[in-house]
């Protein structure tokens, strides 16, 4: 470990090192985003595993916002239920924020708030932020803004961060804005200097370690965007909606930079559609015409795409739809996280419709599964739904650098002019290979037999309109077979197994909380658990096999209706159904480990 160059070198006996949750309570629009990023990065640069979560309201300015940074030597990145260190900048919520803290927590607060009068079991550090900012600038607007960077300095000294790393982080943050970098640096230093007068009375310390070397920090939306970029997406349509907007916004920036063609022109199109019906309609039009096309949305958009989703399924059109889930039903909580669209997406549309879902659980998987989605869409000729959520999509996560995809793009069964010449024609909806997947042609294929007429109405193998009972039944059963084929093509689950009796099954952003809960169960209660993380629907055979090996399987998810558990109940052999123990919770906050641990213990009858 490198030499710690914190403000004070020695650690007190009861020190809690590199294991804390720091929350900054502000109002949105007050400009704290850079400050929080600087704090996060400073920790990261010190080699301490971190994660950052923004809890923001559904408006633009003036409402309460909380940013939480977790530092964890053990690498836990789930939300921690307790806050250890609070930076209280918002008068409106300060009292409630303080009331919610566990005994022993530390509170850095704007001095005029007088929070120190509220409780005696906490450590309070009042700071005159206005005065600090006034020392840096006279512009009233800037003053308001620089209060934020001032708390960074205060936090840095109190938690023993290396101020050099804070300064590096500020330099990175304002890389191309010299004046901004200078002002912010001054504010941070003012905070750092002021904090000398504060007597450290809490146990929380940061020490340099080496756990982040070579890692990146990225949000899931950017990771999905990169996955699409390297999967060669060419048509991107969208309609803005939180929390998916930044996926397309980030993708647009990458496309501009990395996808100008040889003539300088765009080898992609990004279109802001008039609504989600149009966005998905464009994707289907483009997919039919041979492009790799995608859209990104959230719950309300998914509902609006229902009719087109059925067309895509039935007429067999490749498409990729990202659903960055937020809390529903209805408009719900647009800035809170959930896994509530699983059932809606899996069954989206009327009639006997079923879709393929991909469920990344980490930012690395956002990258790889986004890429896989484009391959699968063309291989299976069907819409693929990639389900992430606000927590995974918009928050900051550490990751190993993404690996360059080694496999060439899988474009599926597309017949060329030459194929048609050789075959003397084709039947668009015939199951030639026994896998339920037919062959297709794309418009513009220069052969008189290339064309077919795509429709959402009943058709025979040639794609001709048909109302015949046999044609309908045959086609629908082939589509079912195709989804069975999908079980083998989709990403297999990730299994951690050691012969335990109790198993956990989870997916998506529940993963970090479950991973941590398994440690808690084992370390605190001696309860060993096996773990399967589902990454796709329809379920691979491995999912069934895993459940066969475990008498009790807790299915952890962030919704009310135990949606993945419901899909499992529908898919499992009936005698296995009783093994499924739904463990579904929805509050809009990212899942924390303690909730999982307690629920499993309750299920096992071991809650003390």
């Amino acid at each position, binding site marked *: 470990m490198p030499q710690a160059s914190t403000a004070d070198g020695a650690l007190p006996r009861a020190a809690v090192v590199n294991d804390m949750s720091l929350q900054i309570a502000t109002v949105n629009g007050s400009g704290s985003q850079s400050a929080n990023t600087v704090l996060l990065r400073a920790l990261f640069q010190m080699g301490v595993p971190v994660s950052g979560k923004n809890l923001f309201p559904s408006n633009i300015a003036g409402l309460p916002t909380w940013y939480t940074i977790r530092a964890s030597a053990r690498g836990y990145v789930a939300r921690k239920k307790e806050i250890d260190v609070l930076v209280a900048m918002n008068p409106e919520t300060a009292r409630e924020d303080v009331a919610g803290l566990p005994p022993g927590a530390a509170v850095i607060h704007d001095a005029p708030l007088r929070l120190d009068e509220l409780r005696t079991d906490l450590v309070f550090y009042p700071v005159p932020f206005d005065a600090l900012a006034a020392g840096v600038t006279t512009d009233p607007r800037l003053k308001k803004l620089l209060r934020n960077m001032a708390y960074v300095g205060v936090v840095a000294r109190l938690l023993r961060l290396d101020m050099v790393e804070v300064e590096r982080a500020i330099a990175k943050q304002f890389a191309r804005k010299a004046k901004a970098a200078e002002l912010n640096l001054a504010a941070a230093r003012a905070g750092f200097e002021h904090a000398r007068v504060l007597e450290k009375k809490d146990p929380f310390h940061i020490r340099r370690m080496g756990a982040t070397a070579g890692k990146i920090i990225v949000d899931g939306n950017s990771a999905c965007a990169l996955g699409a970029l390297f999967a060669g997406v060419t048509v991107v349509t969208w309609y803005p909606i939180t929390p998916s907007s930044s996926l397309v916004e980030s993708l647009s920036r990458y496309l501009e930079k990395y996808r100008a063609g040889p003539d300088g022109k765009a080898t992609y199109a990004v279109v802001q559609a008039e609504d989600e019906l149009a966005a998905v309609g*464009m994707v289907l039009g*483009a997919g039919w015409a041979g492009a790799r096309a995608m859209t990104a949305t959230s719950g309300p958009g998914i509902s609006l795409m229902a009719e087109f989703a059925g067309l895509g399924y039935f007429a067999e059109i490749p498409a990729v739809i990202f659903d960055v889930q937020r809390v529903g039903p209805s408009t719900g909580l647009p800035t809170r996280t959930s896994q509530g669209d699983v059932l809606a997406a899996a069954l989206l549309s009327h009639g006997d419709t079923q879709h393929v879902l991909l469920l990344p659980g980490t930012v690395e998987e956002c990258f790889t599964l986004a890429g896989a989605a484009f391959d699968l869409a063309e291989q299976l000729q069907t819409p693929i739904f990639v389900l992430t959520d606000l927590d995974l999509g918009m928050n900051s996560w550490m990751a190993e650098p993404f690996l360059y*995809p080694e496999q060439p793009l899988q474009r599926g069964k597309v017949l060329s002019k030459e194929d048609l010449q050789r075959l003397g024609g084709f039947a668009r909806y015939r199951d030639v290979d026994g896998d339920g997947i037919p062959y297709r042609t794309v418009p*513009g294929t220069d052969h008189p037999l290339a064309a077919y007429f795509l*429709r959402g109405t009943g058709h025979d193998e040639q794609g001709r309109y048909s109302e015949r009972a046999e044609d309908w039944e045959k086609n629908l059963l082939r589509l079912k077979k195709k989804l069975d084929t999908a079980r083998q093509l989709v990403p297999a689950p990730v299994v951690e197994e050691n012969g335990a009796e109790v198993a956990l099954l989870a997916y998506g952003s529940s993963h970090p909380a479950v991973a941590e809960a398994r440690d808690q169960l084992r370390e605190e209660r001696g309860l060993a658990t096996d773990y399967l993380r589902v990454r796709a629907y329809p379920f691979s055979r491995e999912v069934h096999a895993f459940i066969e090996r475990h008498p009790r399987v807790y299915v952890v998810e962030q919704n009310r209706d135990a949606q993945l558990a419901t899909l499992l109940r529908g898919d499992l052999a009936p005698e296995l159904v009783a093994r499924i123990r739904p463990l579904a919770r929805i509050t809009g906050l990212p899942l924390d480990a303690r909730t999982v641990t307690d629920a499993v213990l309750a299920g096992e009858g071991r809650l003390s």
Partner: protein
Amino acid sequence: MNDPTPSAPATGGRMNRLGLSLSEYKGLKTTLCAGCGHNAISERMVEAFHDLSIPPEQVMKLSGIGCSSKTPAYFLSRAHGFNALHGRMPSVATGALLANRRLHAVGVSGDGDTASIGIGQFVHLMRRNLPMLYVIEDNGVYGLTKGQFSATADVGSTAKGGAVNRLPPIDTCALAIQLGATLVGRSFSGDKRQLSALMKAALAHRGTAMLDVISPCVTFNDHEGSTKSFAYVKDHAEALEEISFVPAFDDIVVEYAPGTTLEVKLHDGSRLRLSKLEEGYDPRDKARAVARLLAAEEKGEVLTGLFYVNTGAPTFLDALGLADAPLATQPEEVVRPSRAALQEIMVSLA
């Protein structure tokens, strides 16, 4: 395409410049009612593509849902077709052209498909000036669901069931002009000469060409309301009261000179006043075009002709700065950035 020497268009001749006969532009046999205006439009479509020597494989046919939207099956069998959802063809067409800007796109819709459920996508398509031909086969009713009013039905018209429409019609041409379509016209399904001319102009245009083609529904339509019409059908209905009987009609064919007005008697005895723009009309003035349409509406006339054209506006694909080669067929080397690019990005995130 393979023949660079200019030659006279092969109108009427057996073979076009590609050496293709008219029959190579045909589609399946129609399943619409005999005498339906839509059938005549399909015939003009066959001729127009043939006469302009557009290779059928270079065409995409798109439509929504309705009797009208079935017609892409009845022309150009050698072109790919996409029979989409009710009212949602514009978005599909947009996506298809994004994927392959080299192809010709023709969209066929109905008045219900466009002006009722589809007006939202229509508005935004017009606004984007997407390069395609958009045809409304306009009969003022929902043919396929048996004769309810659409949003282009005239005030006071009466449905077969007896209901009277009380809402004003949407003038899709005035709307299209106002919103940004760059070639806008109206014709009548039975006016072979005018319709063919408009279609060919539209197919040659770069930008959204919107044609509203009045196309009577012989089975359910009644253009002028209960007082003046149902003359013929009424007698027989009186005698038979058989709602499941669909009589077969012959196609109506009209011809009239520019600047004149023609009263057409429809199958149900109702009358339609078609008024053709005069010869010297200048279709480059947006405001005037809209004014003429509003004025004709007040007079109860259906103005026909080419109302507006603007050849200078950038198309949506131009505005997007798209590569010349189709996005759909860009090779992997182009669409997947390099290892170095990923490396650069990873460094920026470290």
